[in-house]
Each structure stands twice: as structure tokens, then as C-alpha cells.
């Protein structure tokens, strides 16, 4: 269980994105298509929710979980940060090299993986400084 939690969860939206991209062919039109019918809000304004917005929403939620996980300072979290870095490298290379990934949505996902890397070790360093580091009960 602890090992499963130490995997970078941001890989979920990335995999999800690529599965949809390779099955649909034209990713940009999929991302622009509306997921639900237009919602007319109380103010009279019309809210359009597209598939791309849902991707960003999902990634933001997972980024929150990642930041929460970054407060742990166990050895497992070191592996977590390392894998996060590798995920970011993979995202950056795909954004540059793969045609399906050249959208704003994927760019934002890439930026969020970068935030995961930087926020991850910054928070862990901060947290570890305040930690006296008694051995964890096993």
C-alpha cells in the first residue's frame, strides 16, 4: 500500500491523455468539444465545459494529492520524487517530439508535473528540517 502511494499519481492524467489521443486521432478537436451541454448560470452567463478543461481539473486535483504526499520524509518519498522527475522528463520529451501531445492542455499537464517535482522536494526539505527523525514504528 505504501509503495503504491509512492508512485507519482500524475501519471494517471498523462496515460489517460495518450489513450484518448491515440484512439481519437485528432486530439485538438476532442479537447475542444464540449463535455456537457452548456450550463446557463444564475447570472445569465453560459458556462462551456470542454474535455480539455476536465483534463486540467483532474490534473489539479491530483497535484493537490501530490503536494499532500510531499510532506512525508520517509525513504519511500525519495523514490516518489525520483519517479516524479522521470515523469516530468517523459512529459517534456513527449510534448516536444510526439505530434498528439502538441496541445495547450498537454503543456499545462507538463507544467503541473514540473510543479510536482519542485514543490515536492521543497516541501520535503522544509518538512524534514523540522523533523527530529526518530525511527518510525514498524
Amino acid at each position, binding site marked *: 500500500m505504501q509503495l503504491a502511494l509512492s508512485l507519482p499519481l500524475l501519471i494517471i492524467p498523462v496515460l489517460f491523455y495518450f489513450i484518448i489521443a491515440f484512439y481519437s486521432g485528432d486530439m485538438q478537436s476532442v479537447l475542444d468539444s464540449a463535455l456537457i451541454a452548456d450550463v446557463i448560470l444564475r447570472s445569465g452567463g453560459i458556462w462551456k465545459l470542454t474535455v480539455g478543461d476536465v483534463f486540467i481539473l483532474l490534473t489539479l486535483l491530483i497535484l493537490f494529492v501530490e503536494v499532500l504526499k510531499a510532506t512525508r*520524509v520517509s525513504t519511500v*518519498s*525519495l523514490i516518489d*520524487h*525520483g519517479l516524479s*522527475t522521470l515523469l516530468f*522528463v517523459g512529459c*517534456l*520529451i513527449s510534448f*516536444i*517530439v510526439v505530434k498528439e501531445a502538441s496541445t495547450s492542455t498537454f503543456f499545462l499537464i507538463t507544467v503541473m508535473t*514540473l510543479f510536482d*517535482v*519542485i514543490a*515536492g*522536494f*521543497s516541501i*520535503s*526539505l*522544509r518538512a*524534514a*528540517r*523540522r*523533523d*527530529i*527523525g526518530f525511527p518510525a514504528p514498524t
Partner: protein
Amino acid sequence: MILNLPWIIVAFLFYNGVALFAGYWGSAPDVSPADVSPADIFQKTELFSIVMLSEIAWVFTLGDCVLLVALLALFVEILKATQTRSLAILDHGLSVVVFIICLIEFLLVDIAGTSLFFFITVIALIDVIAGFSVGIRAAKRDFNVGG
């Protein structure tokens, strides 16, 4: 203060400086500078060669020199990673930026498409990962009073 910059950037600038400008002074007069490939500049420019005791000639090329600088910079980086002040966090962040720049240049720029530049990129990646791993390990053993 200057110690808190990512030192890998020295090797990065060294490589780019040589790759951009070496064609102008290193090549024969009848060869146009644009025809000199960066891989050739680094592999074929001998800085010195020493005959070892085994009577084998050790050839030290410019590329070896760049790699040596990168390794020394990595050593300084790991040494710096053991400090846990707030400035160290900024240092790690800058290391990430240097790694991103290296990776993008390796993928996109023609003079950077060599094994040597790939090694510099990998060293920058090791700097990032080793940097925070060592930092977190060191911080756990640190009893900061009023830090």
C-alpha cells in the same frame, strides 16, 4: 553566494561556447566553419597526449575536458546538496531549470546532438535527483534550533 548557483552550467556554457565558435579558429583555411560538425571538434581536437608507462599514448581531447569539467561540477553539486538552508531549495530549483534547458537544447538544437551533450544532460539530471535526495536525507538528521 556564488556557490549557490548550479555549477553544471559551467560545463553547459563551455560546451556551447566551443561548439558555436570553435569552427572559426580550429578548422583548416579551406574548410568553411559551417562544415565542421561539433562531434568532430570535440573528438578530434587533441589538447595533449602523454605516453604512459605502458608505452600507450593517452590522448586527451577537448570532449574529455568538457566531461571532466562536468564531473567536477557534479561533485561540487553533491557537496552543496548536504546543506539544508533555505537557499539550498532555490539552488535545487535552479538545477531543475538547467536540466530542462539542457534537455530542450539536446532535442531541438543541431550543435547539441552529440553523445557528449547527452552526458552533460544526464549529469544535470543526476544533479537534480541526487540533490534533493541527499538534501532530504541530510535534513532528517539535522536538529535545527531557530533555523
